[in-house]
């Protein structure tokens, strides 16, 4: 198939009009891989390891999907997208979905013809400053220079926050995380602002993390979640319920280690339905009955994914916070599998 891609593209293949808007799942099955849109490099969420392989929190959800559909977590093609071209890439079909730290907002959901199908991370915009600045609240940042990564919701929130509080500031827009980090370390800005999750990652990777503090204020709601094209409800369902299955698995105590055991059936009907021992939830999605088993076996449940990639034992060191299960005071909540 690949061989024809190049020659075909050069040689008038553009004239060929094929059937468009086939169901996304069928396309994926035909292709044998999911095209999963991820960031070009956000430590903890999606970045390349030393071997050039993708890893991270968002990547794991793509892998779970790959496992659910193909029983192969590696059946995923990662499409690195900038914040500029992510929605175009999605609507144009370069990516089947985005797990790209994308904030769910009204206008993106409604105006951009994309659908947000869940929230895999509840985030909010925060500020980080050097300790030596002696600042303990974002309200004391009058006149400060603030490093922001452009092309995100960050600069709007920042502008709103300072305006509402009647303060002035100097924005220092930067193209990408690595540049922003370098400038912040050199002291070219007093404050670094981005989503709190990324902030923790950035802090962890600084020369001397203890010399920097993250201020308590969270100035915005940034629910990050998977995004799909408007209008393909079947695909939307698969993405939504695969993510929900991972959350439900944590709630029900299903882990990567015990999923095979539990899949054999037990006395908890909810677990049985989730893992396909009872009912036919998988078939309703157009997948195999044990799709959730495969997904959980590949990546573990939500909590395991969190701990492995961004949890407190990792260099990123994020606490569960809002992302704890609802039973533990967080917001992560899966609708029932019934």
């Amino acid at each position, binding site marked *: 198939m690949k061989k024809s891609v190049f020659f075909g593209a050069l040689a008038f293949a553009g004239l060929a009009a094929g059937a468009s808007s086939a169901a996304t799942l069928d396309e994926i099955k035909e292709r044998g891989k999911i095209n999963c849109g991820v960031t070009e490099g956000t430590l903890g969420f999606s970045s390349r390891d030393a071997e050039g392989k993708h890893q991270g929190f968002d990547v794991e959800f793509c892998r779970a999907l790959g496992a659910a559909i193909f029983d192969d977590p590696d059946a995923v093609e990662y499409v690195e997208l900038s*914040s*500029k071209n992510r*929605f*175009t890439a999605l*609507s*144009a079909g370069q990516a089947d979905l985005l797990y790209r730290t994308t904030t769910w907002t009204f*206008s*993106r959901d409604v*105006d*951009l*013809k994309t659908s947000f199908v869940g929230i895999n991370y509840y985030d909010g915009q925060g500020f980080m400053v050097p300790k*030596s*600045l002696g600042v303990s609240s974002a309200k004391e*940042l*009058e*006149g*400060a*220079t603030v490093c922001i990564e*452009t*092309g*995100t919701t960050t*600069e*709007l929130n*920042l*502008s*709103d926050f300072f*305006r509402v509080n009647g303060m002035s*500031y*100097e*924005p*220092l*827009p*930067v*193209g990408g995380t690595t*540049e922003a980090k*370098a*400038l912040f370390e*050199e*002291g*070219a*800005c*007093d404050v670094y602002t981005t989503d709190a999750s990324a902030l923790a990652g950035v802090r962890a990777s600084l020369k001397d993390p203890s010399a920097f503090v993250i201020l308590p204020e969270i100035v915005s709601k940034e629910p990050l979640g998977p995004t799909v094209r408007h209008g393909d409800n079947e695909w939307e369902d698969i993405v939504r319920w695969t993510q929900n299955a991972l959350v439900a698995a944590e709630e029900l105590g299903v882990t990567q280690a015990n999923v095979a055991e539990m899949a054999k059936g037990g006395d908890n009907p909810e677990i049985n339905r989730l893992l396909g021992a009872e009912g036919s939830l998988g078939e309703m999605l157009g997948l195999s009955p044990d799709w959730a088993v495969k997904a959980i076996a590949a990546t573990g449940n939500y909590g395991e994914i969190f701990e492995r990639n961004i949890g407190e034992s990792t260099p990123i060191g994020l606490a569960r916070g809002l992302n704890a299960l609802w039973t533990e005071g967080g917001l992560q909540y899966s609708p029932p599998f019934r």
Partner: protein
Amino acid sequence: MSDQSAPPKEQFQLSMLIYDARYRGITIQIFVLLLVMSGLFWLASNAVTNLAALGKPIRFDFLGDTAGYDINQRLVEYSSQSTHARATFVGLLNTLLVAFMGCAAATILGVVGGVLRLSNNWLVSRMVALYVEIFRNVPVLLWIFVCMFTFTALAPQPRAFRGENPEASMYLWDSVAFTNRGIYMPEPLFSRPLGNIDVGIFLVSLELLVVLALLIGGIIFARKNNARAARIQDETGDRPSTGLVNAAAILLPSIIALIAMGFYLGKPALAGFNFKGGINMSASLIGLWLGLTLYTTTYIIEAVRSGIQAVNKGQSEAAAALGLRPGRTMNLVILPQAMRIIIPQLISQYLNLTKNSSLAVAIGYMDLVSTLGGITLNQTGREMEAILLLMAIYLTISLSISVGMNWYNNRVKLVER
């Protein structure tokens, strides 16, 4: 005449469209035109269909919406409550600013470098050659990054200026501060200001207008005075001296006006986290400016060198025979002739520099690409409109630069011949 019979009247045949050289051209042209039109139509109809499917018809009214983001480096008034159109305008001015600064600096450095490249000082000419070879063979984007990071790494932070024994200090009687956030310079202020007038899209300071008007008036007077001096010289052979009068005519009124308006320099001062007051050149502007200048200078050096070398050696020998010193030979004989070769190359370098200034987006200088093609595009999701508008604006800038410089080029040619 009359006995020559008229040529046999030709009958037009369809096959002549192909086989008759007179008509074939028309056939080919119509064919090509149809082909191109149908190709463009195909692209456009695809775009319309695709955009309609996304529910995004091509409309430019997003430019009137509130931008919502701030811009640190700006030449005209702007706040986050301004519109996207305003942000675009700010970006356009920033593009023009860095392009102008880059062209000016690269021209000066390029001419000096080109002359030094040909100097008979071995060390200096080799150093210039080395500089040219190093800088032109590495991508300009890399140089922009390097300049930006060198600047932020080497210049002191604003907090280094604080305290009893500051690590860093300001230059020029505490009026210029080099920090890694930018250079703060004093700004002209007036204690008895005349105010501003609003010309629709931006405010023009009346003080500036007054000074400019007086300067222009002085220059017109000086030209008249020179013409009068020339007339008297023609008539009597004696040329009355004009230099002092002219200088006074040009400078004095402006100086008096400045004093009358209470001109003083507003020095930047450390306040809170940053320096306040004065004119601020942000670090990204400096990084971009340095990167573009250092890269483009190499091309201008080469242009100047080849221009100078193209001047016949006899010219400099003749000048030497006339007893001109090397410096005057260069200024009076070589450079004016070399200019004819240099200027077309300069034009194309100016164009390149202006287009390369779009790399600002990589280091966050808020030029046209970072505003209209960057944040505005991302916030509104209007890719088609934003990028087409972006290209149209750049095309206009490029075409006007080349038209303007070609006009100048032609003028120089006419004067010389």
